């Protein structure tokens, strides 16, 4: 990375300055690396160029180079080579041949990983507020997929979207997951029909890391992210352990298998194959309401990815993901072979099928290492079949995405830019009961994003994009992020940005199927538009020799237009209309990380979300969003991480329930349609021996659950039936045991 340039300033003893004036001179020298045995080896093909003129040469077989200088000295000379850290030298004299030794970037990375380092990190360098959740943190949530990996993270919250489908939804900055953009390796993903169940489609052990960006994010990824972006990085063929196996069994009747295998074809081509299988068989009925707490689940997915490079200037990737996920829930005794209207039992049946294919091609310019071009394409095909009692929703979505990106600099690496054009195509064939809802969207767009860096202190990323939608014409989305480092340990960031989103009425509100209420569209629905403004201050400190950090956030989201799903104004319907009035989400968060005593890390966070929406002319609390949330995570590891202990305590404040204003939610735990606050506890112990890891854990250790999760459960086809008010845990304590086997070839000398 060019912005990581180490500015080595070399002063060469200068006998008599013979190079004054504009006469052409030549810089000569050799570029080499140091082998792990300490010898110097010449590097052939390293790039050497002058920073201001962009004139460059490559080193020959003996590592020698010679580059003419037309401008006056001093000049800045940059040396780069794939796999090594770039070096920048300030040349004030050309009399002495240079001896440049590049440092191996792979080695540098390794040192960082080996060192004791927090498993979740907030950068104190980048202008954009990005939190990185690494592999260590992902392992704390032993089960099982993306939706469950945020358990130890305060920024993203997870809850059940209804009491019958087992679907989980996230909230970020107090707003539902549909307002955060989910990406897999920076490709927008899991939109539309995939959104309601999408978080379960990404198995935890496949992931290498997750990046959580708060605020509107980069324009390069599209116009949609309102509250933030969640990017998932999968394991990479060149970095992953060659063979990996994970088994999981939970007392809730859940079994999982995850595995991956590296496929090395040659130095230039390597691949990775992932598999995932999952079954849940659970006959529990904790609430004694005749309904399954957890749907019977059968799921399998496969992912095969390939990397290739020609060793010079082309890198490519191709990947295919396929998944099948079927759930059967509802009342015990429901026979999924028979027609739903021919039986008395209320059944829930959801089948998701998805296929994704993507390619990424990168074009590098060996003479201009700061420049690159990329082409990304993705095709995603999703089938969703769902039945909730007598309600049905069936849909098919075809999605195509293509993007061309160019990255370069203006004059020096302090001014970088990224520009590109992209294209989105979505075709929906949907049927909600007897209503056909086709939808087709063709959205070409273009953007430019400029990144400025001053003295490593001040940085800004300013971007703007324009997209053309066939129904809504042009849309201009500006976004800006700024940072200022008072010290390398103390950073303040600010961001502002707009977002645009066309709602997909049914899939955005799919929970509605689990109630007797109907969706009633009151007017022609307009696209959603919102502004997000945010501030963040992060300070890293060292207290009694141990490191810690404290981070404070305040984010405000204001909607210009929003699709309102009004669950308050009518007994029989959920009203859908355009925002008429105010709708905002103000989110404050304070988080502290500290190594309290040696090898014992704590994380504490408190979050306050003030989310209000105008429902039929009244500004009211958004349902099922707690105002307060707290998190305490304590992690302890013995020497060499032989034993690891992890405890998480989560606090959730009270919530307004989503029932109409003149109805009282009938539950001993609930008063005045306000749910009680509660605490849940998760704990896990991991033991490592050679290549094996065994973990034992418990979710919801205190065994607290919501008592009445389904209103009108005794008459599921009646008008009072409602399973959409899940304010608390539905399932009780879950004890699990898991096993990980990692087969790792001893690391050999690297290039």
């Amino acid at each position, binding site marked *: 990375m060019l912005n990581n340039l180490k500015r080595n300033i070399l002063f060469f003893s200068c006998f008599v300055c013979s190079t004054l004036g504009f006469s052409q001179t030549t810089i000569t020298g050799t570029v080499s690396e140091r082998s*792990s045995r300490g010898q110097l080896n010449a590097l052939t093909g390293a790039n050497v160029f002058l920073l201001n003129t962009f004139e460059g040469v490559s080193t020959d077989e003996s590592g020698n180079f010679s580059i003419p200088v037309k401008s006056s000295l001093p000049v800045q000379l940059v040396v780069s080579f794939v796999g090594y850290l770039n070096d920048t030298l300030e040349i004030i004299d050309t009399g002495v041949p240079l001896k440049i030794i590049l440092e191996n970037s792979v080695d540098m990375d390794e*040192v960082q990983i080996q*060192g004791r380092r927090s498993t979740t990190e907030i950068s104190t360098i980048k202008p954009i507020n990005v939190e990185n959740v690494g592999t260590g943190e992902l392992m704390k949530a032993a089960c099982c997929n993306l939706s469950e990996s945020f358990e130890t993270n305060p920024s993203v919250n997870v809850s059940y979207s209804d009491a019958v489908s087992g679907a989980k939804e996230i909230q970020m900055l107090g707003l539902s997951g549909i307002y955060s953009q989910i990406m897999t390796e920076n490709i927008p993903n899991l939109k539309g029909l995939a959104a309601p169940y999408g978080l379960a489609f990404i198995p935890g052990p496949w992931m290498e890391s997750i990046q959580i960006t708060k605020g509107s994010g980069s324009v390069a990824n599209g116009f949609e992210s309102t509250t933030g972006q969640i990017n998932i990085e999968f394991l990479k063929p060149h970095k992953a352990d060659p063979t990996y196996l994970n088994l999981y069994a939970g007392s809730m009747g859940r079994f999982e298998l995850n595995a991956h295998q590296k496929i090395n074809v040659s130095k230039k081509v390597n691949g990775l194959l992932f598999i995932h299988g999952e079954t849940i068989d659970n006959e529990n009925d904790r609430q004694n309401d005749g309904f399954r707490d957890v749907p019977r689940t059968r799921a399998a997915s496969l992912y095969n990815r390939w990397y290739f490079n020609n060793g010079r200037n082309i890198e490519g990737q191709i990947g295919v993901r396929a998944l099948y996920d079927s759930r059967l829930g509802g009342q015990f005794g429901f026979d999924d072979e028979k027609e739903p209207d021919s039986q008395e039992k209320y059944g829930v049946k959801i089948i998701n099928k998805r296929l994704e294919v993507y390619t990424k091609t990168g074009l590098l310019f060996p003479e201009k290492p700061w420049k690159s071009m990329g082409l990304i394409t993705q095709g995603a095909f999703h089938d969703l079949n769902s039945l909730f009692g007598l309600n049905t929703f069936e849909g098919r979505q075809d999605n195509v995405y293509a993007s061309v990106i160019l990255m370069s600099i203006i004059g020096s690496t302090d001014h970088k830019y990224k520009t590109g054009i992209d294209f989105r195509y979505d075709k929906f064939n949907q049927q909600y009961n007897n209503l056909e809802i086709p939808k087709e969207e063709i959205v070409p767009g273009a953007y430019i994003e400029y990144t400025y860096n001053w003295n490593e202190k001040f940085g800004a990323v300013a971007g703007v994009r324009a997209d053309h939608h066939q129904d809504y014409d042009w849309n201009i989305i500006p976004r800006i992020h700024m940072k200022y480092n008072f010290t390398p340990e103390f950073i303040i960031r600010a961001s502002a940005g707009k977002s645009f989103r066309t709602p997909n009425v049914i899939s955005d509100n799919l929970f509605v199927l689990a109630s007797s209420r109907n969706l009633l569209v009151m007017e022609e629905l307009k696209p959603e538009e919102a502004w997000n403004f945010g501030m963040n201050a992060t300070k890293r400190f060292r207290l*009694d020799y*141990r490191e810690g950090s404290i981070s404070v956030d305040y984010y405000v989201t204001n909607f210009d237009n929003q699709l309102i799903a009004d669950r308050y104004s009518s007994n029989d319907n959920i009203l859908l209309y355009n925002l008429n009035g105010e709708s905002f989400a103000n989110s404050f968060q304070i988080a502290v990380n500290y190594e*309290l005593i*040696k090898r014992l890390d*704590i994380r*504490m966070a408190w979050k306050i979300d003030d989310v209000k929406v105008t429902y039929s002319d009244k500004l009211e609390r958004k349902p099922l969003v707690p105002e307060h949330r707290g998190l305490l995570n304590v992690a302890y590891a013995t020497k060499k991480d032989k034993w690891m202990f992890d405890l998480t305590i989560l*606090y959730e404040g009270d919530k307004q329930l989503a029932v109409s204003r003149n109805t009282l939610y009938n539950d001993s735990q609930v008063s005045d349609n306000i749910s009680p606050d509660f605490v849940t506890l998760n704990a896990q112990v991991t033991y490592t021996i050679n290549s094996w890891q065994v973990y034992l854990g418990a979710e919801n250790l205190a065994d607290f659950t919501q008592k009445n999760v389904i209103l009108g459960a005794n008459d599921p086809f009646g008008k009072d039936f409602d399973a959409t008010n899940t304010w608390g845990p539905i399932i009780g304590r879950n004890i699990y045991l898991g096993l990980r086997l990692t087969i790792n070839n001893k690391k050999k000398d690297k290039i």
Partner: protein
Amino acid sequence: MKLKNIVTVILLQILFTSVSAFGQAKEVEIKTSAQCNECKEIIEETLMDMKGVKFAELDVESKIVKVAYNEKKTSAVDIKNAIVAVGYNADEQEADPEAVKRLSPCCRPDGTHSDE
């Protein structure tokens, strides 16, 4: 609401106990024969795993390791002995020759890997 207060109190308590638990650490600087990042890692990890050592950071260029420790639990002599035992010189003490043999080539004194 009551729960919220309890949680807040617990959180504050944890923070303050940590602040009051500050031992008076003693700092010492020891010149070693470390010569690369791998050596740095070995020495830092060995020392951090010792009882009573709060902090250890080695600067490869100067070969000096800065160690903070609790005098009641360990001593500078013990720390030096631990460095010697994994194969490095510690001030005037020579590295254990047996341990040196176990080091990887880049960490051995005869390896040409010196960062000048």
